[in-house]
C-alpha cells in the first residue's frame, strides 16, 4: 500500500457528539481521495469532514483504523459511527497469521471429532503418503519462516522435486516474492539476506513458504488467479456476503514450467501491479476477464457439474477461512470490512486460497474495472448502512434483498440461528398440543 498515510493525532480524548445528526446530514471522512469512493458519498448527499471532526462514516487506511482503536488514543466511537476495518484484520490479511488461524481451526475441529475435519491419505508423486484434510484442504502446505523451518525441511524432503514460493508476510502487490526449487537455494538466500536468518531468532521480517501450485488451470495457455470481493459486517455471529462481480487476472506471458522461467516473474505472479510493467500488458482489458465470462467458458468447455462444484468449493473456502479467524477477531460492531480474496484454481478444478487482502486496490486499470469498483463501493454502503440511511452500529445488520444489490449472502449465522429457533419453537408448540 504505497498510499500517503494521513495520521490522526492519538491524543484525541473527546467523544464526538451526534449533533450533526440533528442537522440531518450524514458526514463522512475518507483517507482515500479517489473518485470511485467520493462519488458514492456525494450521491448520497453526505458531507465530507476531517478525521478529527464528527464523522458518521470513515473510509480509512488500516493504520489509522488501528490508531483509533488503540488504547492510547482514548477515542470512543458513538453509535452513529462506522468504519471500514476491523481493528485486528491482520489475523486474516497477514499471510502467516492466516495460516496459523486456519491450522488452529482445523486442529480444534479434529479434536472435537467434527466430521468437517475428516482426514484422508494422499499419495505424492514421490510415492510418499501424506495425510490431508478431506474438506478443509484449501491452503497449500505452508510454513512460517523462520519459526517452522525444521518442519518445512521435513515436508520438503518428502517431495524434493517440488517448487515452493516464498512470500514476505507484511508486503503486498507481489513485492519480495520468489520461487525456489532447491533447498540449497533457500539456504543461499538466507545467507544473503540482510538480517541473518536464524531459526531460533524471531525475525520481524518473517516469510511464509508455501507449496507452489505447479499445475494451475490454464486458459488459452495462460495462468491466472481469481479476485473475489467478500464483505463481512460481523464475525460473531458471522455475516458475510460475496460480490457477484470478480475477475480473473491473467499473466501476459504464456505459462512455462521450465526452470529458466522460474525467475521470470511475469509468468508466475498474477498481481496486476507486476503484470502492468510487463511488455505485453494491455490497458484496454488490463489482463482481466470477468468471473461471469470465466464461468460461462468453463460451463461450455467442461460442463455444468464441475463448474458448479468449483464455485461451491470457492464459497466453502471463503466461509471456512472466515470461521477460522472469527474467534480471534475483535468483533467491534462499528466495523465492517471488504476483503479481496485471491484464489488459484489448479487443473483438477480445485481452488486454493492464496491470500486475503484487507485493503483491496480500488485503483481502476480499465473502463470495466472502474465500473466494477464503483458498483462495489455503492453496494458496500447499501449493505452496511441501515435502511434509514444513517450509519448506526446498533442495527440488526440484516440487509434487505434490494440493499444487497450485487452481493449474494454467503453466510449469516444470526439468521440461521433465528431460523433454527423458529423451527424448534414450532416443534415445541406442536408438542404442547
Amino acid at each position, binding site marked *: 500500500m504505497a498510499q500517503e498515510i494521513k495520521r490522526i493525532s492519538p491524543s484525541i480524548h473527546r467523544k464526538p457528539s451526534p449533533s450533526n445528526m440533528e442537522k440531518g446530514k450524514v458526514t463522512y471522512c475518507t483517507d482515500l481521495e479517489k473518485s470511485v469512493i467520493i462519488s458514492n458519498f456525494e450521491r448520497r448527499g453526505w458531507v465530507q469532514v476531517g478525521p478529527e471532526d464528527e464523522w458518521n462514516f470513515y473510509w480509512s487506511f488500516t493504520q489509522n483504523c488501528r490508531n483509533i482503536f488503540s488504547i492510547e488514543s482514548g477515542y470512543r466511537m458513538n453509535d452513529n459511527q462506522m468504519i471500514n476495518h476491523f481493528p485486528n484484520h491482520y489475523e486474516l490479511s497477514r499471510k502467516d497469521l492466516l495460516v496459523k488461524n486456519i491450522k488452529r481451526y482445523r486442529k480444534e475441529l479434529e479434536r472435537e471429532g467434527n466430521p468437517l475435519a475428516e482426514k484422508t491419505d494422499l499419495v505424492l508423486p514421490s510415492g510418499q503418503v501424506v495425510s490431508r484434510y478431506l474438506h478443509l484442504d484449501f491452503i497449500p502446505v505452508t510454513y512460517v519462516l523462520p519459526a517452522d523451518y525444521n518442519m518445512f525441511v521435513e515436508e520438503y524432503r518428502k517431495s524434493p522435486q517440488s517448487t515452493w514460493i516464498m512470500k514476505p508476510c507484511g508486503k503486498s502487490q507481489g513485492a519480495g516474492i520468489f520461487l525456489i526449487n532447491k533447498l540449497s537455494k533457500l539456504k543461499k538466500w538466507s545467507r544473503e539476506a540482510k538480517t541473518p536468518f536464524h531459526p531460533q531468532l524471531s525475525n520481524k521480517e518473517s516469510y511464509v513458504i508455501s507449496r507452489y501450485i505447479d499445475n494451475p488451470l490454464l486458459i488459452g*495457455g495462460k495462468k491466472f488467479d481469481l479476485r473475489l470481493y467478500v464483505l463481512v459486517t460481523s464475525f460473531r455471529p458471522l455475516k458475510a456476503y460475496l460480490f457477484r462481480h470478480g475477475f480473473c487476472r491473467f499473466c501476459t506471458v504464456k505459462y512455462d514450467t521450465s526452470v529458466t522461467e522460474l525467475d521470470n516473474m511475469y509468468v508466475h505472479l498474477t498481481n496486476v501491479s507486476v503484470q502492468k510493467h510487463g511488455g505485453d500488458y494491455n490497458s484496454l482489458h488490463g489482463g482481466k476477464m470477468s468471473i461471469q465470462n470465466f464461468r460461462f467458458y468453463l460451463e461450455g468447455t467442461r460442463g455444468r457439474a464441475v463448474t458448479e462444484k468449483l464455485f461451491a468449493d470457492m464459497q466453502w473456502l471463503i466461509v471456512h477461512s472466515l470461521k477460522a479467524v472469527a474467534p480471534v477477531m475483535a468483533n467491534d460492531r462499528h466495523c465492517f470490512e471488504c476483503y479481496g480474496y485471491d484464489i488459484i484454481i489448479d487443473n483438477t478444478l480445485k481452488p486454493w486460497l492464496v491470500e486475503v487482502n484487507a485493503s483491496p486496490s480500488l485503483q481502476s486499470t480499465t473502463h470495466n474495472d472502474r465500473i466494477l469498483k464503483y458498483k462495489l463501493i455503492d453496494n458496500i454502503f447499501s449493505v452496511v448502512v441501515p435502511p434509514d440511511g444513517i450509519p448506526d452500529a446498533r442495527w440488526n445488520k440484516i440487509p434487505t434483498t434490494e440493499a444487497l444489490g450485487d452481493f449474494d449472502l454467503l453466510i449469516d449465522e444470526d439468521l440461521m440461528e433465528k431460523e433454527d429457533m423458529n423451527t424448534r419453537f414450532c416443534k415445541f408448540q406442536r408438542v404442547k398440543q
Partner: protein
Amino acid sequence: MKTIQGQKLVASPNVKKEDFKQTLQQAMKEKGLDTKLRNTVFHWVRTQSKQNKLDPLTSLSKASAQWEKRIHKSLNSMCSDLETSLAKIRPQSEQDELADKWNELSTYNLDLTKYRPVYAPKDFLEVLLTLSGYVPFTREDEPKWEFAHLPLQVKTLDQIRKLYLEWSSGEPLLGANPHMASAVPGFVTLEAERVSLGERVAALGYAPVVQEYLKKGSPQCLRAKLWAQVLGSEIKGQQITYFNQLKKSVLEVDLMIDKLIFKDVQLTASNDDQYFVFEDVLYQVMLCFSRDCDVMQQLKGSIGSPLTVTIKGKQTSTDSLTVFPPSGVIPFHGFTMYATPFCYLYDDPVQLYYTFRAFYIRYWHRLHYISTHPQGIVSLCLLYERLLEANEPLLWIHFRNININPIRVVFKWLMRAFSGHLPPDQLLLLWDAILGYDCLEILPLLALAILSFRKENIFQVNTLQNVDAVLADLSTISVIPLLQLALMRA
C-alpha cells in the same frame, strides 16, 4: 467411409438375403449407422439446395464485381508499396520459428505497422449504399440511399412472426427466463427441463432434431456438442489430418494475407476483454482458414472470383500458382470476430476450427458479399429498413429529419452478427436462433428491437455521433426477451 461401414454391415450374418431390406434397416439401427446415414443425407441435401447459379440481378453482380476489383487492386498496391510479394516460399528458418511458436503465436514478432486492413465494415457499407444508384429510382422525394429501390423481396413483420412461430406464440424460451417454473412435471425450472431434453437430443444425435431443439435456446453446457451435430462438424481422425495439412501450408508458403490476419487478431480479439485470453488459438484458426480450399469449393459462385498469384521462389509449374488466399476469402477489419465466440465452447483448436468453418460456409459469408440471396447482407439491410419504417414510423421520421441514414447506426452489428457487441452469453443465445431457424433475418429484427427499446434516448439526440453513443453499450440488453416481445402481437 460410410459406404465401407455399409458394405461391412451388408456382409455380416445379421443381414439375411431373404428379407434384405428389413434386416438391413434393423442392423443399421442397432449399429447406430441409421442415424449417421440420415445425418449424412440431411447435410448433403442442404448443400444441394443452395443457390449456386449466377446472380439474377445483373446490377448487383456488376457492383459486386467492381467491389472485388477494388479489393484486389488495393491488395496489389499494398504489396508493391511494401515491396513484398503476395505469395512466396517461406525460408526454412522462418518456418522453424513459426512451427516452434505455433501454440503461442501472440509472441511471434512481426512488424505490422505498415499493414492496414484491406477494408472495414464502413467501406463495405459505402459500397452497399451506392447499389440503389444502379437502379433508377422512381420517386424524386425519396433519398437515394434507400435500399427500398432494389427490387428484392423481403418479409414483413407478420411474415417473420410466422417464421419464428414458437417465439411469437409466447412459448417459454430458455434465454428469456431460465428460472421460471417448468410446465413439465418432474422439473423445477425451465432450465432443468431444457437440460434434460437437450441431453436426450444430444444422445440421439440426429441433426434435424437438434436443429429443432435449438429454436428455443440451448444451455451453455450442451451447446458445444449440439452445434457440432447440427453443422455436421464433429471431428474424427480425418479432420485432424486435414487441419494439420492446413498448418503445413501456413508454414510453407508465406502469403501477405498472414500479416493482415495477425494484424486483425491483434486489433480486435487481443484488445477485447471477452476474447483476449484466446488469442493464440485464434491465430491458428484464422491462418489455417485462409489456406482451406474446401471453403472456396463449397462457396463457389457466392464469393466472386478470387485472385490467382504466383508463388515467388517456386519454379514455374502448375503448383507455382495459388489462389490468393486458397480459401478465396479476403478478410476485412473485424473478420476474426466471426470466430471468437466459439472460444467459449471449444478448447481444442481443431473442433473450434471446423465448427467455425461450418458456420462461415452456412451463414457468415453472406454478411460480407453482395448478392440477391434473401439471407444476404443486402436483403438484410433492406429488411431492416422496411421493418423500421413500418413498425417505428416516428423513429424513421426522426432519422429523416436529422439526416441520418438509419442503416448507418446498425450496420456494424449486422455485418458481424453482433459479435463483439453483445456479451458472449447473449450472443450465443442469438446464434442458437440462427442455427435453429436456419435464418439470418433475426439480425435486422434484433437491430430494430434495440432501436425501439432505446428510442426515447434516440429522440433526444440529433447527430450520428450521439446516436452511436446511445447504442454503444449493449451489455445490459437481454436479447431473447427483447426479441420475443417484438414478435408477440402487441
